[in-house]
């Protein structure tokens, strides 16, 4: 009986915006070749392709260890073979919006650590910035190479029921996930080759080249072949695969804190030949752990003295320390103002409306309407420290209300969005599941937006939380080129 089910015959888009189907159950024009190819497969065939994709990920060792499991069980980050498709015109708008946003945020960070004009002009309350845990005094007056602070960004976008993309979060520190974009694509191409070939899907494989250019641009001009390294916390970090993968793709050194030492304010690698000078560090450890002599003393991951070497201009760090001030969830609410202030332009991509709990009037509204809102701790990521009002119990709301009253600066609230959905293989059926998407942006000589991104999918029915730590999986994101332009 189930034999016929694993295709789109019984698929219901429901009352949400659906990434592949319209409200009448017809495939969007741009996703039709994909739907047709999947519908032409037998039940077993689609299942076989899903299994083959999972096996490939397992063999590549793109796995994470199950915490607390001594038997060494390892799992792959769940991958669904039905891709999400974004047509060229929509993407063009996203790309323009992201470039505008990163340019403005970069100017903002530079201003905050220098003249603070935006605070003096009272566009943003001074307290909100100076009270942030992400404001680093150590960065005041710093001039990073080429005035770029935000080199690598992964911005989370969601689509509401109206089909409009909203920015949900700017990740300006150490955004991860791009390796999944590249590996998912490699596997996806094998899964639906015909649809892929006919739909003019844009390439993502050259991301490492763009990343290398971005990093190289940070080295002083007179250094012809700069020494560039990726700094990783090591193999027990959940993103270690990505660090190794990017190092391998760019052919650069993957270093741990213990491989590096600062001598005379220069950063050195410990090599079999002795010490070797480093010019650029793509660091994948947080600000807090970067330098035990400046930030957390107990950090074993960082390098003592690296901040001093950086301040003296003897090396470049990507991303620059201090960026957290611009992706603080309370500061997020002001990004539209930030864009207007620095660029004199209207934001191309809208924000999700955000209530700042520190503001008394807004806080009162939040406390009165908790069951309708999503409340987030401003300084946490990964889906932790979150209250989803409509799905919460009375006691959860009460305990959150207490937390908000105790530390209003630490919380913001947003209306619950009806995230768009994308068809996903669930057991023996295809069902709609909520998704977001994280495009990756590189800021070097110019701003580059990778035409693709990590689509994360909440595999649990009805769930809006897409984070991998909370039962999320991923999908390939097919950004289509316009006719004759791929």
């Amino acid at each position, binding site marked *: 009986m189930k034999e016929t089910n694993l295709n789109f015959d019984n698929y219901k888009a429901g009352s949400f915006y659906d990434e592949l189907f319209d409200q009448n159950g017809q495939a969007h024009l741009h996703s039709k070749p994909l739907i047709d190819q999947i519908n032409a497969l037998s039940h077993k065939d689609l299942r076989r392709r899903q299994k083959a994709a999972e096996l490939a990920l*397992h*063999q590549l060792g793109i796995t994470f260890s199950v915490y607390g499991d001594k038997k060494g069980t390892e799992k792959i980050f769940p991958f669904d073979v039905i891709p999400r498709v974004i047509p060229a015109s929509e993407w063009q708008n996203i790309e323009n919006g992201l470039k505008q946003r990163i340019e403005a945020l970069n100017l903002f960070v530079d201003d905050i650590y220098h003249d603070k004009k935006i605070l003096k002009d009272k566009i943003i309350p001074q307290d909100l910035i100076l009270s942030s845990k992400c404001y680093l005094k150590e960065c005041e007056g710093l001039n990073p190479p080429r005035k770029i602070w935000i080199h690598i960004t992964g911005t989370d976008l969601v689509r509401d029921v109206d089909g409009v993309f909203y920015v949900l979060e700017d990740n300006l520190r150490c955004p991860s996930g791009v390796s999944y974009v590249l590996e998912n694509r490699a596997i996806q191409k094998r899964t639906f080759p015909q649809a892929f070939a006919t739909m003019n899907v844009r390439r993502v494989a050259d991301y490492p080249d763009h990343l290398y250019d971005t990093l190289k641009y940070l080295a002083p001009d007179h250094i012809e072949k700069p020494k560039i390294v990726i700094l990783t916390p090591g*193999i027990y970090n959940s993103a270690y*695969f990505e660090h*190794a*993968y990017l*190092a*391998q793709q760019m052919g650069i050194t993957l270093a741990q804190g213990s491989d590096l030492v600062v001598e005379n304010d220069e950063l050195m690698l410990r090599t*079999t*030949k002795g010490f070797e000078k480093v010019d650029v560090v793509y660091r994948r450890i947080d600000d807090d752990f970067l330098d035990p002599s400046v930030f957390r003393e107990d950090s074993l991951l960082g390098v003592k003295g690296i901040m001093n070497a950086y301040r003296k201009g003897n090396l470049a760090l990507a991303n620059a320390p201090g960026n957290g001030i611009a992706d603080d969830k309370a500061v997020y609410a002001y990004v539209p103002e930030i864009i207007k202030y620095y660029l004199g332009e209207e934001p191309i991509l809208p924000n999700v409306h955000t209530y700042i709990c520190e503001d008394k009037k807004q806080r009162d509204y939040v406390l009165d309407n908790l069951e309708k809102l999503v409340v987030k701790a401003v300084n946490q990521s990964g889906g932790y420290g979150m209250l989803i009002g409509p799905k919460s119990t009375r006691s959860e709301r009460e305990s959150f209300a207490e937390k908000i009253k105790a530390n209003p600066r630490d919380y913001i609230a947003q209306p619950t969005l009806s995230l768009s959905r994308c068809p996903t293989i669930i057991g023996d059926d295809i069902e709609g599941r909520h998704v977001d998407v994280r495009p990756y942006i590189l800021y070097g000589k110019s701003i580059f937006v990778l035409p693709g991104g990590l689509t994360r999918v909440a595999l649990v029915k009805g769930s809006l939380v897409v984070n991998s730590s909370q039962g999320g999986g991923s999908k390939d994101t097919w950004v289509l080129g316009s006719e004759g332009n791929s």
Partner: protein
Amino acid sequence: MLSRVANSIYWMSRYLERADSIARFIDVNLKLILDIALDRENVQWQPLVLASGDEADFFKRYKTLDQKRVVHFLTFDNLNPNSILSCILNARENARTVREIIPTELWETINELYHFIQKYSKKRQKDNLLPLYAQIKASNNVACGLVANAMLRDQALHFLRLGQMIERADKTARLLDVKYFHLLPSPEYVDSPYDAVEWGAVLRSVSAFQMYRKKYHQVNYRDVSEFLIFDPFFPRSINYCVNQALSSLGAITDMTKVDMGAKGEMAKLQQMLLLTSVDKVLAEGLHEFIDIFQFNLNIVDQVIYRSFFELK
């Protein structure tokens, strides 16, 4: 290259080689049962424990020594740091830290082998282990092929080869030492039919039987000892391993311009082999000879560590 990376590649390679050696030793012993079990009370398992160097650990945790326990101790026991399972786990952890240096397929080969033995270790019925040992040998051959065909001839390759050759020289030496002791307990066995079968097994343990035959045609302990210690062309003889390790050390020294004596120490081992012969070694005591050899091999290992891995 990074000191840490060089160290990891060296140990990745040693652990792979170690797993391969143990798999060969057990595999041959299991097959030996088919030849002699009817005549002799039991196939000797104790020498395998002795050759592993972990007999103290074994007797601490196992009351009796028999096939089942020895096989488990050497293959799946995760408390034994030198069991095949532990070695492959360690090879994989080291490979993981150098993923960006080694060919992706090499990582995948080691990763798949790890998942294979993990799965095997969880089987309730482990009565047929021959496919497991066959897989370990096959994977190791694939790994060697990838190293030969896909890696730059740079430091990484030479550290890898250095680890492999030092480990291999050590294992061949141990095997010979232990077997010699056990196979020559009483004069009447020498050159008896059993003797030929058992020494044949020693050769098979290091995949040497066929190559040995080409040169010596018949099996006896003197010729086997000569072949495994001195043969310049057999890839698992001690002499060959020492020469290869020395050549890789030379290449590393040229590339790094660092020489804190590792090459000199290795050259001493080469000299030690050059200045003696099998008859002299057997007359003066094989065990004593191998003891000195291993002592000096450990010194080489320590000097390599100080020269290249430990940068203060």
